[in-house]
């Protein structure tokens, strides 16, 4: 269970140009649920995930995973151990090969090298990068879609309980994007993990979501199931739906 309590994040507090990004996010995510967070570009979706991971401090509020707080520095490793994060740009280490990236993630958490290599191969096969030729390539030698897959393999290397996906399908063609979306869904299901996916792509959202939230103006402006999405009267949600159909949005 993930609990977000009144999370606020203001950038540039020490300067004259303060930028409030999150203003009081309250959210509870049950174990095994798959949440999709929608929202415009620059609304603070990535910031929300990073704050949840404790990559930078929140201004106020708290986040708990199974009762463990982000602010608890002594149990930081245990807290992080719950998560597998797929970053917006993949964030593969470009000094290592694809296989090296995943092996590194595993050995850093204490898995012996030999076993790590085996698991890494397995995970790469699971995301469709099983070929020996691909494994020894460096991230810069892969296409965007392949990088996303490799990054996914790294995120799921340790079978985490919570998966965070930051725009997994942005910048990919519709077919690849749909493949990745289904790959994510299957991965989440096999792991039995809780998932939070960030996207502005409604197609991906429909594939992945048990529940959908809309982030607007630093707050959760709407949330509901996919069925509720069709009948919503929330104006922002309606304009998003319209935009996705190619109609002129407000």
């Amino acid at each position, binding site marked *: 269970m993930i609990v977000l309590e009144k999370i606020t994040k203001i950038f540039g507090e*020490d300067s004259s140009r303060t930028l409030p990004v999150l203003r009081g996010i309250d959210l509870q995510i049950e174990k095994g649920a798959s949440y999709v967070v929608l929202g415009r570009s620059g609304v603070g979706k990535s910031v929300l995930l*990073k704050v949840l*991971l404790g*990559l930078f401090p929140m201004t106020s509020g708290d986040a708990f995973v199974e009762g463990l707080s982000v602010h608890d520095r002594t149990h*930081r*490793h245990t807290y*992080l*151990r719950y*998560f597998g*994060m797929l*970053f*917006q*740009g993949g*964030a*593969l*280490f*470009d000094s290592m090969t694809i296989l090296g990236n995943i092996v*590194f*993630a595993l050995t*850093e*958490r204490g898995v012996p090298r030999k076993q790590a290599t085996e698991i890494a191969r397995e995970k790469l096969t699971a995301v469709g990068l099983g070929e020996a030729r691909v494994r020894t390539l460096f991230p810069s030698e892969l296409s965007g879609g392949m990088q996303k897959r490799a990054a996914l393999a790294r995120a799921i290397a340790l079978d985490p309980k919570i998966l965070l996906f930051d725009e997994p399908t942005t910048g990919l063609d519709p077919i690849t994007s749909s493949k990745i979306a289904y790959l994510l869904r299957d991965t989440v299901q096999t792991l039995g993990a809780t998932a939070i996916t960030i996207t502005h792509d409604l197609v991906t959202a429909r594939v992945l979501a048990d529940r959908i939230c809309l982030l607007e103006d630093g707050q959760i402006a709407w949330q509901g199931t996919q069925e509720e999405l069709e009948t919503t009267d929330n104006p922002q949600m309606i304009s998003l739906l319209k935009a996705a159909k190619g109609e002129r949005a407000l």
Partner: protein
Amino acid sequence: MRFVRLLGCAVLRVLARVGHFALFAFKGLAGCVTPPVYGYTLLQQCLAVGFYALPVVGLTAVFAGFVLALQSCSGFAGLSSENTVAAVVVVAITRELGPVLAGLMVAGRTSAAMAAEIGSMRVSEQIDALETLSVNPFKFLVAPRVIASVCMMPLLVLIADIIGIFGGFFVGITRLSFSFGLYLDQLVKHTATFDVFAGLIKAACFGFSIALCGCYYGFTTVKGARGVGEAATYAVVSSSIGILMLNYLITTLFFGL
């Protein structure tokens, strides 16, 4: 009133920056002395800082030696003997020119590379990824670079000293028609262990400044590709200034009366 406020703001900002840098240096040092050690990265950095800088540093040193021999000969017109020229070349190179020139060359080469590499890791979220994998970026990124620079700089400077003195020697016997044996004798006579040692201490400190500035500006990179460029620039400028300031400090420590 407004002026005072602006001044106060500026002073506070500088102090905050200094504090931030000091904290960074402390974390970096802590990373150096606590396990785990990333051996492979350390080796890579040793190669990058030491081995690949050899041609640049060697060329700088040899030309510095050439010029020094010529200048000391023309400068001390009445005294242009093997003795004086050898003394000037050896003392200047081992005490000052070897460490400082090598330091500045490596600062231009390596600290820019460090800032750019770590900076682009920052903007492409690789440092965030390290943290989510429970890897301490100070241990993984900063510590190997600091250790490599601090260890490799003295080696580089030792080589630069030898090459520089050889440069002076070469000009001495070819251009200034000094006697081979006598000049060599004087060179050996004027080479003081203490001078060389002080130069190597300097080199280690310069290495620290180079790695720390490179890593610091890399780590604090913001704003994408332009930020990476800025980080590299700041790293070179500040590590060069750091080297010159440290040089003064250490010189007063060793040779100041």
